[in-house]
């Protein structure tokens, strides 16, 4: 597999392949390539051998499917921007208009809504797959680190997007969310006020969340995704942990189209699922935000539910600990993982400590998500 471990560079050598194709298309491609070099660069980027064990293996399609899912999210998000009005007076009415009046608005918004959940699930599964296959090990530390940051960005999208309809759910979840930030010792209240843009939740909070959701996070996501994908291409697929896989690793298949076809098919399946869910039940829109309401019980989006629910069990004194130390510990351990686990062993059952810690995290998240729902 030495070819995988090599950096890509000889774009120009691959160029010959375009000339072997016949007809007008090839001439067109040649013309573009001679002027820009993009066709051969693209071809070189896509045509690399990957071990056969990734072919038609769902566990190796989680990353690709996440990418497809992110594309859907960008697409539906940009569509929503054509109608959304980020002002405290009009935000709710514009989302109401999108959901109940704009042609296919219900579909676009519902896809954006359900797909947000799908992305969190897919990123989480992709992360677990990478973890249990020890794919974070040298020399792939940067791939892992960029992945962890991408995971956090995904959660950031969820947190900021929830407020945008300015309905009761979003308003109260954000009120609780920013108060949680306010519990951070020393910096807390400054942090909460920076998030809100002032002492209370208002227009500036909406602007901040909006610009974070549609400009800052997408920008950061695209840059990190480029790094993540380039690292993936640069280092190739990590060695497998199964004996079967090791046997199959002797053979290789081209990345495009053999591996990509699976992502594309799964992407189609995901789109079908999203359309079905949207048709079955539209993305919810609660009544408009009313800060003076006493009856509303805030509940965050399901993927933050475990954290929200954990607070039930924690005495007030320990809360800053839970809010600061626990996330720092979890995220910190994710960042440090490739530098702590530097051994040759890749099989999870042979390194019980890392496996046990990860299983503990996963168990806590799953258990408290269910208890909270």
């Amino acid at each position, binding site marked *: 597999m030495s070819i995988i471990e090599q950096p890509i560079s000889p774009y120009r050598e691959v160029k010959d392949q375009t000339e072997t194709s016949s007809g007008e298309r090839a001439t067109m491609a040649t013309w573009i390539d001679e002027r820009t070099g993009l066709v051969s660069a693209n071809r070189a980027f896509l045509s690399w051998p990957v071990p056969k064990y990734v072919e038609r293996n769902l566990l190796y399609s989680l990353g690709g499917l996440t990418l497809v899912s992110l594309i859907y999210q960008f697409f539906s998000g940009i569509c929503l921007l054509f109608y959304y009005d980020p002002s*405290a*007076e009009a935000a709710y009415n514009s989302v109401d208009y999108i959901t109940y009046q704009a042609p296919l608005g219900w579909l676009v918004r519902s896809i954006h809504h359900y797909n947000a959940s799908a992305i969190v699930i897919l990123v989480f599964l992709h992360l677990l797959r990478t973890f249990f296959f020890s794919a974070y090990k040298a020399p792939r530390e940067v791939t892992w680190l960029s992945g962890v940051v991408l995971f956090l960005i995904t959660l950031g999208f969820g947190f900021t997007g929830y407020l945008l309809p300015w309905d009761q759910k979003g308003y*109260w979840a954000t*009120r*609780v969310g*920013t*108060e*949680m930030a306010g519990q951070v010792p020393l910096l807390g209240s*400054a942090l909460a*006020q*920076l998030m*809100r*843009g*002032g*002492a*209370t939740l*208002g*227009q*500036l909070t909406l602007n901040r969340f909006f610009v974070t959701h549609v400009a800052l996070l997408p920008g950061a996501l695209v840059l990190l995704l480029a790094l993540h994908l380039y690292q993936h291409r640069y280092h190739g697929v990590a060695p497998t942990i199964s004996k079967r896989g090791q046997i199959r690793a002797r053979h290789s298949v081209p990345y495009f189209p053999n591996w990509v076809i699976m992502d594309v098919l799964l992407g189609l399946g995901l789109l079908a699922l999203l359309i079905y869910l949207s048709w079955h039940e539209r993305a919810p829109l609660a009544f408009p935000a*009313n*800060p*003076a*309401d*006493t*009856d*509303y*019980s*805030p509940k965050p989006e399901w993927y933050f539910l475990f954290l929200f629910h954990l*607070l*039930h069990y*924690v*005495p*007030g*004194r320990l*809360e800053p600990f839970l809010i600061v130390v626990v996330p720092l510990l979890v995220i910190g351990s994710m960042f440090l993982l490739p530098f702590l686990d530097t051994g040759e062993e890749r099989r999870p059952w042979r390194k019980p400590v890392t496996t046990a810690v990860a299983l503990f995290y996963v168990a806590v998240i799953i258990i408290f998500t269910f208890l909270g729902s």
Partner: protein
Amino acid sequence: MDEQKFPLNNVSEPKPPEMGRRRFLETGVWATTSVVGLTLFGTGGRFIVGDALKDKDEQWINLGEIASLSAGQMHQTAYSLRHKDAWRTVEEKGLLYVFSDDGTTYTVFSAVCTHLGCNVHWEEARDGFSCPCHDASFSRTGEVLGGPPRQALTQLEAKIEDGVLLVLV
């Protein structure tokens, strides 16, 4: 490419005076970039922080005549006041609980739970407040009885002028 016109290869074999000039230019590029960068980030950072760290403006609001706030009973009062939210003037709405033992001194609580900011409910049967978010409970006097909050309900400054109860929010 005409190598005579662009003798790039010669750059790697510098003469000492050339080196000095190159380093000077390099330093110049970085220094200029740093000045531009600091200016941009400084301006942008200050702009984005804006007035976010300013404390809330306090205002006395009128809760009505004390005659209508009977003693011995917890009164839930919604207030709204005009408040500047950046470029908008909005009716800010809030919820207060007013209580008096004797009709002369009044205790006013903000309904905002000191835990994570949900609004608390008054529960007559339990003679206390409860918060729906994390099952916190407070006594009639605002002290924490159970649940995660660490601070008693916020008591607001109140005064009576001409038989009218005023509260600082």
